[in-house]
């Protein structure tokens, strides 16, 4: 891979800052400047946290439902099954993230191997 390929085009880096870095960082800087006197349990923050969680949940669903790149080579049922199997193990192990991730991966790899 050449240096040019590793860096990519500069427009993509500008987009990274405009669409990613600034919209994200602004909240940390607001916290740094106006931090004192905000009630962490306020109703507005409960709603904000719920919407933020649901957006992240949507992105998780998007990766599984409309998979990028190599993940698209895995049949639908196998991807959904892997997430389901991981979830069951996660819950059975008293919410172990590690066990859930390993179970999901094993399910997918075993399914791929079994399907040939």
């Amino acid at each position: 891979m050449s240096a040019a390929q590793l860096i990519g085009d500069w427009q993509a880096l500008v987009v990274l800052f405009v669409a990613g870095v600034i919209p994200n960082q602004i909240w940390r800087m607001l916290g740094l400047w106006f931090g004192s006197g905000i009630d962490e349990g306020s109703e507005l923050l409960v709603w904000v946290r719920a919407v933020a969680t649901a957006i992240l949940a949507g992105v998780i669903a998007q990766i599984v439902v409309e998979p990028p790149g190599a993940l698209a080579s895995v049949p639908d049922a196998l991807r959904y099954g892997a997430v389901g199997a991981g979830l069951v193990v996660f819950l059975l192990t008293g919410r172990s993230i590690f066990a859930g991730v390993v179970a999901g991966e094993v399910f997918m790899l075993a399914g791929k191997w079994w399907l040939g």
Partner: protein
Amino acid sequence: MALPPLDSPQWQSPWRAFTWGLRSITQTILTLVLFATYLGIGALAHDSHFSLVWALCSTLFVWAGPAQIILITTLGSGATVVQSAIAVTVSAIRLFPMVVSVLPLMRTPTTKRRELFFAAHLTAVTLWVECHRFLPQVPRERRIAFVNGLGFGLVSVCLTANTIGYFLAANLTQTLGASILLLTPLSFLFSTARNSREVADVVALALGVLLYPLVTKMNSGLDILVSGLAAGTIAYGVHWWREVRA
């Protein structure tokens, strides 16, 4: 590894405190989870046609897994800059209460705001959890140095993971590449579920996953925002309804 007692001479130098913070990354399973997540983000960036430097810059300057994944997934699937920026900023609002709650743990009466800049930048869910765990064992005047060390260590782990994930995605067989991409949804689903203590958070997570495929049928171009706002608001409604009844 146990941290030295609060009155130990080990804490006299800020550099020592930084080093203790750096070494503390070996004391938490979350480091492993972060490694797996950022391995996935590196692979996701590759398969969504971003460069390695782009992926590393996003880790260094965004330093929030959910925002990075939202950015890569939305831009990669053809969203406009404005649509991606809105989705990222909504996901990042949660950083505000995190920073607000974590900085008082490190502040002393003489602390200047600029001394807290890196601590604020490094604040994300992992650091936030670990600060509440480690900082009571660190003398107050050395906490900023300790957190900078801890954050520096975690960022380094993630940059390494990004690079490995990126090259694995480029060179692995399709099946192994797929398994690395699958790390991202799995680790985020379970770490978010683990951090969901309130009913509103659990409902938002479950409904957010279920609603997204339905909302995509509308093809609005703002699917992530529509499903997120709807599921989040319903989750808040459930929370509100339980409060009223209680």
